[in-house]
């Protein structure tokens, strides 16, 4: 094995990369784009829901309810239909996603000491938002109740019942970026390594430079190392970029100590081996570059969806959980989130790390064998 020859091959790969300026730009634009998308879109917390208030009571309490909804920040009241029938067209055209109805006689019922219903309608078509909207609305109505009781001198804090302290640990304000961006490091590594590696061998075979390569003194192992190094470096640069932007710009806290940093590094390196192996395997089994791209596309999409990155694993049917755990990305996400959010060390992350070791040995080993066989045939 000659380091000089490997260095030359790495040099050649970088030169080829530089010749395609758009591809190079894309390699650097992709992490930035994904940071924006995942940092601002997926991580967006539900606020400013367009809301209509139908006030049929025109009383002090109905104004109080309207004010409470406006002041909360979760709802933006921008329609005041005069009747309940006015809600339907607004909802049908998706102008509003929440409607609050204060029926006629609410104030009168309250004055008699009765319980008065107040209507909250949410647009279920807007998926996850509707559930959040309902719980916000319930909280706001409870606040109005507490204010009214306080105004009448009834102290609810002294009344019997439950004093439930519900707290979100590790991420108290449920900031989504805190767990989305650590995961993004893994996603970027996977996409960028698999996409580029899958082209590596098939490209040379397509343009006939593979045969040229092997009339030179280079050995198969040197060839492989020289191919793998440049793209690993590129992926490492991307991962670092994401991590730095996440911590400095999006202020994602890193809750762990040095052990957690070690967990991240070890986990990522193992995962990179897996991604490299997968890319090489695809490259070897594909006849054309186009085929390789299609195969990558086919594998990456289910991997992203089933890994628990966007859709929680808890929402998956139990029978599909083995499928989710057969995806290496699932484990590296657990490792990254565990280290960043929980500050977990090697002991706590032993399970997913071992799984990653298994995947790395299995997939990278298979790739080595496949590439060797292919090169011998070349």
């Amino acid at each position, binding site marked *: 094995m000659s380091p000089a020859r490997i260095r030359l091959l790495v040099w050649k790969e970088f030169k080829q990369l530089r010749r395609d300026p758009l*591809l190079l730009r*894309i390699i650097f634009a992709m992490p930035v*784009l994904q940071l924006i*998308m995942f940092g*601002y*879109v*997926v991580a967006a917390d539900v*606020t400013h829901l367009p809301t209509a208030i139908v006030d049929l009571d025109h009383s002090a309490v109905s104004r109080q309810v309207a004010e409470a909804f406006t002041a909360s920040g979760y709802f933006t009241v921008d329609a005041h239909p005069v009747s309940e029938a006015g809600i339907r067209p607004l909802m*049908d*055209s*998706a102008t509003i*996603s929440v409607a609050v109805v204060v029926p006629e006689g609410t104030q009168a*019922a309250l*004055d008699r*000491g*009765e319980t*008065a219903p*107040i*209507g909250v*309608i949410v*647009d*279920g*078509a*807007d*998926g*996850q938002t*509707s*559930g959040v909207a309902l719980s916000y*609305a319930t909280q706001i*109505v409870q606040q109005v109740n507490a204010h009214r*009781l306080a105004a009448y001198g*009834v102290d609810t804090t002294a*009344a*019997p*019942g*439950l*004093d*439930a*302290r*519900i*707290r*979100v640990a*590790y*991420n108290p304000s449920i900031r*989504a970026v805190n767990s989305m961006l650590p995961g993004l490091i893994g996603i970027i590594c996977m996409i960028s390594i698999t996409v580029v590696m899958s082209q590596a061998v098939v490209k040379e075979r397509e343009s006939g430079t593979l045969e040229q390569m092997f009339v030179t003194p280079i050995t198969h192992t040197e060839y492989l190392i020289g191919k793998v190094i440049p793209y690993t470096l590129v992926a490492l640069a991307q991962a670092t970029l994401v991590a730095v932007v996440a911590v400095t710009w999006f202020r994602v806290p890193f809750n762990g100590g040095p052990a957690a940093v070690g967990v991240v590094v070890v986990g990522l390196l193992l995962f990179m081996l897996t991604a490299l192996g997968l890319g090489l395997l695809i490259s070897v089994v594909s006849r054309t570059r186009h*085929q390789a791209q299609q195969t990558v596309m086919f594998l990456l*999409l289910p991997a992203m*969806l*089933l890994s628990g990155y*966007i*859709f929680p*694993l*808890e929402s*998956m049917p139990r029978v599909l959980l083995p499928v989710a755990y057969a995806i290496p990305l699932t484990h590296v996400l657990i490792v990254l*989130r565990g280290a960043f*959010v*929980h*500050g*977990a060390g090697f002991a*706590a992350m032993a399970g997913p790390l071992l799984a990653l070791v298994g995947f790395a040995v299995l997939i990278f080993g298979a790739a080595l064998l496949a590439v060797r066989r292919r090169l011998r045939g070349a």
Partner: protein
Amino acid sequence: MRATLARVGAITRKEFRHLLRDPRSLAVVLLLPVIELVLFGYAVSFDVGQLPTVVVDQDRSAASRAYVRSYSASGFFDVQTDATDLTQVDTLFRENRVRVAVVVPAGFGRAVAAGEKAQVAVLVDGADVQAARIGQAYAIALNARYGGQLTAAWADRQGAALTGGVGLLEPRSRTWYNPERRSSLFLIPGLVVVIIMIVTVQQTATSLVRERDLHTFEQMQVSPLRPAELLVGKMLPWTLLAFLDLSVIVALGIGMFGVPLRGSVPLLVVASAVFILACLALGLIVSAVSPSMETANVLALMIAFLPSFLLSGLAFPLASIPVWLRWLSYAFPARYLVSISHGVFLRGAGFAELWVPLIQLAAYAGLVGLVATVLARRRTP
């Protein structure tokens, strides 16, 4: 005219032959939609249920056991283990084995019996944001209900009205269009859009660049084909396949996953047709600016895939994202069709409600069509 049709037909046949010879592309076009549909309809959702839960019952009274039982009875929490103290809870969180911890301190039962405020604590793991939000909401609701029951029971025993004659407001909630709030019902109508976009943008872009890479483009230019005929012939197969995918997803979505189709079908067809035109034009633009097939592929992926998933309102509401990103979302066609698709499928909307996004989509298609024509002209002298 007949000669034109014959020439367009020949190109179309050629494209289909290419496709049939390349089983992987065929699989992407025909199988990927079905796989995604099954994933979205069955596997992934935001509907978190059965959050793994640990209980720390330091009171061990009848009252505390009844309170803890209300968690497993709710169907939202899956009480898996017991722990004796909080450090154990921390370890369980770190090992990713539970998402929720319920802590009942000693003295709970005594406080309930005495009619005092009984203390409890619920910890939700913030590492998975979706699960944390939902876990928090469930926990708040469960405790509010249980607390209300305790209060009422105590008031009954005391024979007293609690609120001192002050009437209270009670929220009565209704969820329209999707009462069970199943996420597959809103993910599948949006999925249609993503699939069409991948099939059209990506496939047209790469197939045009490939033609240039293999130098068969010049061969066709010296044939009797007119540029317009060539273009129509190259795009027709993908248009047909996009419509085929659309029909398959809609049929399976309605048949297998119970997605309702309440609104105007003609509107959906018109909007999809305009959308497909816009996507084809985007594919043309990508092919015109890309020097190589890899670049075309990655560029198409970046235009077709990420924004149509994330900047379209398919899964993540556009109302919550920063304003500058909302403006950016108008640069990609997916958002227009997603709002039309959600409206038609779920809200029973028609032209009267959805003319705004339809006109926006048409204007967008016209604009990118223009850009594509100019760029394609410049590329083929």
